[in-house]
């Protein structure tokens, strides 16, 4: 299943956030969206997943998701959004309980996604007992459990320290390599973008418009920390954004 954004514009009152965004998200690829603070990255992601409705333009699903897909558009949030009163397994079962699944199915799915995210030993732990990186792995496991057609990742690693971020990036790449999924990956971190993205969409500052789409051909599993060609691309992206980031930084917040 592909996603097509055609001519999306959105504003909050008089404040224009996004202008005329058209973009294709091909299946099996990771599309990174980068841009300066307040350029509407997260708004765009909420529009794609139907948590908000655009003022103009539309988000289209092209084709039908696979039969076993329970929730085609599935988010991974920056702040994890785990229920603190449910265990790791309980948090995953939460999103399966509303579907017509047998107890055995639910149990199998939970143990499968826990194994894929290396969380099997922590099934009964409560979120408060887990580190930030582990919490995000639980959230990723929960997203995988509903077999999404497209994962919508809203700064998934931004709340984590840089070492944990490295580890989780490796995990995500390993997950993708084993079983490619489509994803829209919003981040402000250019290092993450060049490591995770098949294509990188650079948005301009408010109103957010597509400035450039950069394609990276190098396979995800061959990219690693400090690759010189990736750093070159990262530098290019930074030059694109630098001035706007500076302007965004020195601007009064308009909310």
């Amino acid at each position, binding site marked *: 299943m592909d996603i097509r954004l055609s001519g999306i514009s959105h504003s909050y009152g008089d404040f224009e956030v996004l202008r005329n965004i058209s973009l294709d998200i091909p299946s099996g690829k990771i599309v990174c969206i980068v841009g300066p603070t307040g350029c509407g990255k997260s708004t765009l992601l909420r529009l794609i*997943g139907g*948590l908000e409705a655009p003022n103009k333009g539309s988000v289209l699903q092209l084709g039908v998701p696979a039969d076993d897909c329970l929730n085609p*558009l599935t*988010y991974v949030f920056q702040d994890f959004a785990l229920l603190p*009163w449910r265990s790791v397994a309980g948090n995953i079962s939460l999103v399966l309980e509303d579907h017509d699944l047998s107890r055995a199915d639910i149990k199998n799915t939970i143990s499968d996604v826990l194994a894929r995210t290396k969380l099997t030993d922590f099934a009964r732990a409560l979120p408060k007992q887990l580190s930030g990186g582990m919490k995000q792995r639980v959230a990723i496991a929960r997203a995988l459990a509903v077999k999404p057609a497209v994962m919508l990742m809203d700064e998934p690693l931004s709340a984590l320290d840089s070492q944990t971020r490295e580890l989780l990036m490796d995990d995500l790449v390993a997950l993708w390599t084993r079983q490619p999924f489509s994803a829209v990956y919003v981040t402000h971190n250019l290092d993450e973008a060049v490591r995770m993205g098949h294509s990188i969409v650079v948005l301009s500052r408010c109103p957010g418009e597509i400035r450039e789409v950069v394609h990276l051909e190098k396979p995800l599993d061959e990219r690693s920390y400090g690759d010189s060609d990736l750093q070159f691309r990262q530098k290019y992206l930074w030059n694109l954004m630098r001035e706007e980031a500076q302007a965004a930084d020195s601007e009064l917040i308009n909310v």
Partner: protein
Amino acid sequence: MSDTEETGIARQVAFRGGGFAPTPYRWIGLAVFVVLVSLAEIGTRSGFISPLTLPKPSDVLLTFGELYDSGLLWTHLAPSLTRLAVGAALGATLGIGVGVLIGLFSYIRAGMVPLIAAIFPIPKIALLPLFVIWFGIDEASKYALIAFGTFTPTVVATYGAVDNVDRTLIRMGQSFGMSWKSIVRKIILPGAMPGILSGLRISLAIAIILLVAAEMLGAEHGIGAYILEAGALYNLERLFAGVVILSLLGVLLSTAIGAIERYVLRWRT
């Protein structure tokens, strides 16, 4: 050593952190209690405090013992506890129900919040004659008074708690396509639980106050009736024995809620 020689002075950096962190000290509360009671005992025994000002604590204990031995304690305590249980259960259940509805539906909120704000400050005791007319002089009017008194604070605490449920969790539920019912049952209600329970603490204390008020106005048995009777006869020992029972009741309820909180909210950090 070489540093000392170079600069001439070496001083320990003075500690200036610490404090501003509540630390539990278990026995101090009890000690304050014991000291106050002993002061009263010494004062009354020495005659420094006249028997009309304060009864001897030991006499109060004796009166309490007599009350227990004669079986009258249960005659008074049983109806009181029944009234408290029925009234508070009614009021709290209704209050939580209405509070959740206010939290969930904007129309109900718009209609009910001003009404609750209007009812809240009314001293419910003032309405007792009205309740007597509506529900009769028997138990029903007492239940109604206690229920009404616990209802309003419970409503306010509950809808506040529902409002405070983390919105990102609700968005998460929606983004996974959870049904409205599931979101309410599995995300909003457990998320509001801490606020509801702390509201219940206040509501139950109010219930005890109203229990006594209701019993002072026409009840044959009950702690309130017992205190009223003792007061009318200026029997201070009995009066204090009654008051002590109420205090104990309050401490007991508060401990019970604490235990429930620890169990239900064990997921909290």
